[in-house]
């Protein structure tokens, strides 16, 4: 925090509390002012304090010395006491980056009763796990997670922080980047590192996947990226690995937590984990109707896979958003991807082009999807899929 209260000089007069435009200041048990999360470092309180007990430290000074930052951090996102699969991918990728610049790989883990998960992170390659264990951290909230991780970054100064580009990582990352006044590159699909100046080159799709851009953050630390789930290679698990556990001491004041989680609802009906699926049978507008997905489901079941959809089908209400593959949906990398009645719009291709073996079934012989297919079948999917089911026996 760049606004600091000198506890000895503070007399508890509350003038700062009254002056704060953001209601960010409270008094602690000792009647001393505490700067909360809502602080925007506007400096109003600094001028108002009659005892000169509040000062604003120069953020510029902190920023300048980037050599003080070391280590690669991975945000060990957990939900309901389970690590998200992307964490294992980030530990795999983080290990490669850490090795090239000769630094340590750390995980930062927040939750309640997460000691087992900390050991799991070590098994997947973390040299060190920073653990914050508190009831307030059981489920993700923007305020609590931002505060705890920001404070840990201030204290331990990592040079790289990686988060999964999940709905949680994409909420946390931007908040951390503002608190640290550093750059954040969203939805990276490739990370490379310069072994000399430790600059990470973060490649991501832009312009709806029509263009790839490589982004750097040369003068600010930590360098932060959110990384697309399903893109990086998973780390291998070794139960014998050892590592260090560093306990963080999270503390929350009144006004720090402004969002309350009332309920978490899991949508069991659509529990398709596209990122983990080995086989995906995807449907596009060529299906002609919502019912077409029933046929795809038959083929998916036979191959032990799941059904997915193009954005157009989701927009048409034929399939839920959780099925969507592509630029604004999920990036997938199954061993087999069967695109049925999908034209191959660049936005869709961005989400599935790294699949192992791509099969395209489309009536239109000039559909763009055939440019990318390992095996292309020109024909009516309502004839072709039953024939494939027959051939599979």
């Amino acid at each position, binding site marked *: 925090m760049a606004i600091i209260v000198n506890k000895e000089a503070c007399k508890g007069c509350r003038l700062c509390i009254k002056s704060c435009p953001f209601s960010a200041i409270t008094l602690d048990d000792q009647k001393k002012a505490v700067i909360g999360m809502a602080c925007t470092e506007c400096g109003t309180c600094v001028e108002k304090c009659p005892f000169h007990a509040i000062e604003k430290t120069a953020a510029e000074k902190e920023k300048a010395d980037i050599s003080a930052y070391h280590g690669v951090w991975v945000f060990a996102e957990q939900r309901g006491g389970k690590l998200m699969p992307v964490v294992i991918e980030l530990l795999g990728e983080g290990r490669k980056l850490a090795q090239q610049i000769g630094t340590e790989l750390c995980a930062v883990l927040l939750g309640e009763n997460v000691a087992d998960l900390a050991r799991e992170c070590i098994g997947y390659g973390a040299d060190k796990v920073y653990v914050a264990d508190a009831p307030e951290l059981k489920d993700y909230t923007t305020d609590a997670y931002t505060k705890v991780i920001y404070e840990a970054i201030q204290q331990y100064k990592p040079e790289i922080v990686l988060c999964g580009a999940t709905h949680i990582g994409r*909420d946390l990352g*931007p908040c951390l980047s503002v608190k640290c*006044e550093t750059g954040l590159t969203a939805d990276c699909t490739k990370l490379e590192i310069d072994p000399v100046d430790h600059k990470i080159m973060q490649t991501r799709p832009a312009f709806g996947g*029509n263009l790839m851009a*490589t982004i750097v953050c040369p003068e600010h630390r930590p360098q932060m990226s959110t990384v697309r789930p399903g893109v990086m290679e998973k780390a291998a698990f070794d139960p014998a690995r050892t590592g260090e556990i560093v306990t963080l001491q999270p503390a929350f004041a009144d006004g720090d937590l402004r969002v*309350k*989680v009332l309920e978490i609802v899991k949508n069991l009906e659509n529990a398709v984990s596209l990122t983990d699926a080995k086989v995906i049978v995807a449907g596009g507008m060529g299906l002609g109707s919502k019912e077409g997905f029933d046929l795809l489901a038959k083929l998916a079941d036979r191959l032990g896979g799941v059904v997915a959809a193009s954005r157009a089908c989701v927009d048409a209400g034929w399939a839920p958003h959780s099925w969507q593959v592509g630029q604004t949906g999920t990036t997938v990398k199954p061993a087999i991807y069967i695109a049925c009645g999908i034209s191959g719009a660049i936005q869709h291709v961005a989400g599935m*082009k790294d699949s192992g073996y791509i099969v395209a079934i489309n009536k239109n012989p000039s559909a763009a999807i055939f440019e990318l297919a390992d095996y*292309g*079948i020109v024909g009516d999917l309502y004839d072709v899929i039953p024939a494939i089911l027959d051939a599979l026996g």
Partner: protein
Amino acid sequence: MKIIVCAKQVPDTTEVRIDPVKGTLIRDGVPSILNPDDANALEAALCIKDAAPDTKVTIVSMGPPQAMEMIRECLAMGADDGVLLSDRAFGGADTIATSSQIAGAIRKLGEYDIIFAGRQAIDGDTAQVGPQIARRLGIPSVTYVQKIREIKEKSVVVERQMEDGYEVLEVQMPCLLTAVKELNTPRYMTVSGIMDAYNAQITVWNHNDLGMAPENCGLAASPTQVLRSFTPAPKGKGEMASGSVKDMAKTLVDRLSEKHLI
């Protein structure tokens, strides 16, 4: 109630094509549109205004002077007024600089109860600027809002979309909410709205209006830089099936077994 909606004019990326020879983006003739998620953000604000007509809805946008058209479109849908941040000094801003400029404009506008933004813009897809504005203003934020359940006196109860379901959250006001398309269906512009919007005065602010030095704006204040950009290399063309439907299906199954995929 006072509501601010953050909106962006974007090229319709679904219309963008790659020049197959030069490998560059063809941007000529690509229409500029109101970013789709921002239309949902505006609709959410307008729904509140429908229920409480003394609500004022202000659009804040940043972009070149032509973004004025998009603000007029928002006014024609029902927004009350708009501010456009337009200045050479704002150019080349990454999300950190953009959020600082927009937060500066919102501070200048004064009091508000809710700020709505779209989840992300289709040209950058970062989903960063919304929550970053909230952090800069020191207010709580909820991203991926798919439903507004209840607006209470001092808080809002919303559903936040997750990959595998949703969360029900209660957030204190003032707050910032980012909208996903499941939140609502944006309304059309009305004829009288279009007439009024055509003549409406839209405020334009530059860095002096925000009290920001040029070195604290735009590219100069952006921690990230684009090192290079390139078009993704196409994968080599594979095999096209031939013969009857039965033959094609059989060959496919053979290929999959050869590769030990099934």
